């Protein structure tokens, strides 16, 4: 009987070390979301349903062997690009940005799908050649990254565009792009930034950056979010105000408290110690993923898992950084903690792929 259970579990292709970290985060998610949503049972119910669905997605993704991803990568890339075009043409406008595609039953964001598809496609592209990647391949990869990213920027959704281009760029970096090129690329980006600022940015995006530079300048309008979230975090102190006792969130001074700013609720209620615990769980997951990617068997698997891992860290860093006033406010949720189905499913899918990379190679032997 016990043997049978172990056999079934191993046939699931799950990585249990990673699962522990993910489930720990999901548990924390329920705890803090209950508080951040104002003890709203509907929100909780929905999040639990989503989490179960996300775990199923993770299991499916883990069950599929890595070669399936590699094989379908070009198709997925083209499909996503077409869908992005559709969003621009027929998209549903929510909060001033067209991100959603309404398919009758479900509304979904193709840009979310791309968070998975982009690293798969770029990893598959580089896996065709040898590492370190040639300059020409790097250039082609950049173009492949740029096409959908430009479409996403046009939606406009700067946060997602940044994350997707980062996930692609990580692969170029991990594929061994020459350091000089990396430096000069950085330089070009630095020069391009002002151009982008003046010609391609919406006012609300500019405003976010301006507010980031000096949130106190406009405490009631544009700087409100960041001031309120810093007050929330700061007033948490060492041990926090205690679960369900965060005044900033419960008195609704904190905006978007169960989505992008949930980190502030967490820090307010659980303090610096809580933050360290949360960070430790994240680092545990990241380091486990790093271990998996460094033990991966093929370039495709290495590049893909490495990129997904580093992108995951970027999620964590950008969200916590923006909520605590270190980075400008871009709409990036805190992975596995923020309320919202799309981001949760994307993340568990990514973890499923990483698990697939780790659990399939033993059997397949490359």
């Amino acid at each position, binding site marked *: 009987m016990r043997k049978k259970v172990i056999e079934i579990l191993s046939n699931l292709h799950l990585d249990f070390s990673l699962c522990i970290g993910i489930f720990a985060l999901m548990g924390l998610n329920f705890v803090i979301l209950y508080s951040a949503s104002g003890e709203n049972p509907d929100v909780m119910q929905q999040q639990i349903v989503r989490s179960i669905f996300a775990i199923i997605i993770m299991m499916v993704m883990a069950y599929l062997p890595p070669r399936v991803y590699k094989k379908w990568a070009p198709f997925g890339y083209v499909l996503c690009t077409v869908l992005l075009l559709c969003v621009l043409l027929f998209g549903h406008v929510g909060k001033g940005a067209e991100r959603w595609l309404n398919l009758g039953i479900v509304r979904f964001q193709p840009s979310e799908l791309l968070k998975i598809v982009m690293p798969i496609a770029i990893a598959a592209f580089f896996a065709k050649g040898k*590492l370190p990647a040639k300059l020409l391949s790097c250039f082609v990869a950049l173009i492949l990254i740029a096409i959908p990213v430009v479409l996403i920027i046009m939606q406009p959704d700067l946060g997602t565009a940044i994350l997707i281009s980062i996930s692609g760029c*990580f692969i170029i970096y991990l594929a061994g792009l020459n350091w000089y090129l990396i430096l000069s690329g950085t330089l070009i980006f630095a020069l391009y930034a002002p151009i982008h600022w003046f010609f391609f940015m919406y006012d609300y995006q500019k405003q976010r950056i301006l507010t980031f530079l000096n949130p106190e300048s406009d405490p009631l309008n544009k700087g409100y979010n960041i001031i309120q979230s810093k007050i929330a975090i700061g007033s948490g102190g060492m041990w926090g105000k205690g679960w369900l006792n965060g005044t900033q969130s419960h008195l609704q*001074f904190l905006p978007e408290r169960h989505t992008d700013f949930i980190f502030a609720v967490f820090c307010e209620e659980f303090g610096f110690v809580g*933050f360290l615990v949360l960070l430790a769980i994240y680092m545990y997951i990241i380091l486990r993923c790093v271990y998996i990617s460094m033990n991966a068997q093929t370039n495709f698997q290495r590049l893909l898992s490495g990129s997904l891992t580093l992108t995951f860290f970027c999620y964590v860093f950008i969200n916590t950084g923006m909520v605590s006033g270190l980075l400008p406010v871009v709409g990036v949720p805190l992975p596995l903690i923020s309320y919202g189905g799309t981001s949760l499913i994307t993340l568990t899918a990514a973890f499923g792929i990483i698990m697939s990379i780790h659990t399939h190679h033993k059997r397949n032997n490359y």
Partner: protein
Amino acid sequence: MFFWSNKKNDFDVATDETAEANLFNNRMKIAIIAVLIMVVALIINLYTIQIIQFRSFEKRSNNNRIKIIPISPPRGLIFDRNGQILADNKPIYEIELIPENLNPDVPLKDSLLKLRELLNLNIDDKDIENIIERVRFSKKFKSISVASKLTEDQIAVFSVNQYNFKGFSIEPKLKRFYPFADTVTHALGYVSRINQKDQEMLEAHGNAENYAATQDMGKLGVEKYYEDILHGKVGYKEVEVDSIGRVVQTLKMVQPVPGKDISLTIDIRLQQKAQELLGTNKGAILMLDPRNGEILAFASNPTYDPNMFVRGILNKEYQELLNNPERPLINRVSQGGYSPASTIKPIMSVMGLNEGIFTAKTRFFGGPHYSLPGSTHKFRDWRKWGHGWMDVFRAIEISCDTFFYDLAFKSGIDNIHKYMSLFGFGQPSGIDLFEESLANLPSKEWKKNKYHQVWVPGDTVPIGIGQGYWTTTLLQLVRAHAILTQHGRNIIPHLARDYADLNKEEFLIRNPKQKYKKPEETAVKVKSSSYFDIGMRGMYLVVNGPEGTGRKAFAGTKYVAAGKSGTAQIINIKQDQRYNAAAIKKEHRDNALFVAFAPYENPVAVVGILLENVGGGSRFAAPIARQMLDEYLINLGYLEKELPSAEKEKK
């Protein structure tokens, strides 16, 4: 899969594999170092915020959730002299909005239109524009009324749909209500919304904080005059609120100090009687107690319903009031300037006696007209054939004009101005209303300033019968007679029963321009107080004498009254013309006046009647004066109650 490149041998492949893995692992290691650096940066940042700056953020967090909400004090009520409520506070439900809580993504106009449709509100597009305008120009946190007097159905419908209207809420309010509607308007006044100008005024006087939660303030009458007393002191509530402004819990409460109630001297029954007697006439009735200046009735007609102003007068309604040819907004008691006409004669007599122009025994021949020495201009007597020989008593009784032409001429305008000023003409009366005009007691100086002309004796003559340049308010006229009945003692007519307390020095800033005499002072000092008795005796004869102009109107009174009629010409009658009421336009007909007091021996009431454009004072105004006195002394039982034995004798 292993041999995906056939160019290389097994060893090369293995070497390449290792090299590629090493390259990747190196890159990964560098990335991990970067990750760790960023994590350290994050930890340092969080440590700074949560540990180092903890105190400062904790303080800001505490400030964040505590809001100070001002609570408006309940406005003092206003009663009549018998405790009948004249100005009440009625609880109503009002939809209001707080600008800072509105959803910035939804245009206010859309919300208002939706709200109007949902609740079937009685507001038109212009009113919606006004609300939007007010939102734009008022303080972000100060609530603005959208619609008031909601029905229970409307409240229910709104409550269900409230989530669609962020920033809107239903608030229970105390609104001023005047149960007697238009009966007391000109005395009582009304409260109405604090407007931009009021707000500036409040700020200039440092009162803005006290009015932080107040929506209405006194705009007219007693409501305005005693605003500081009626308003009370604002209270505060320290509450824990969310960012939508919803109160989570109250932490501390400083109760507002309610405004003081004020009892008026007005008797609402007399007031109602007065309005009833005025009927459709333009005019005014003022009745006061000469012993203390308490105003018993203060009626001006036409009048209007002050409740319109409380609920927010519509532009249309206001235009109607403004453009009404009968001018209901004018306070005909204290603002309207009228020629006092013959009602002034008893008072002029006091001057004549004191100046030694005549004595009680002086005989005067009253012809059909009077001419100044060396002039052919004829100042006519009201009776074509004159009155023959008379003394001052008969002169008052029959209201002989030539007697008083002569008196005026002999006194001269300077003396008239001096004496009439002492009786309060052209002077502030001290009444507790801001709506007082001083009318015009003419003088040489006045004419020079106004017309750049020299005062001529011809100007003085008609002053003797209360015509010419002379105008007074009914208030001044009645007050002058009250002073007469009190033998020169100063009388301050007033509406608040606690006038003396309410108008101590510190409160006199209410009307700094209004420099009136204190009640304890003597207004008119004369050589002998019998001069007042002579004037009063003349008035006694008007009502009780065989030739008295008021004898018909006062026939059969159960008390002894005295009075004086007056008929004021509105247009000049040419030298060879007769006044013919039927032949001239209604608005050019004479004003009828009558001033009466009773009981004669110990007056407790002075009443003044003014009717515009009706005709003779003894015919039209005297009966009304009598009815007012009857109502007060007989019907309301004042005579029996207060003066059981003194005035049993009938004439």
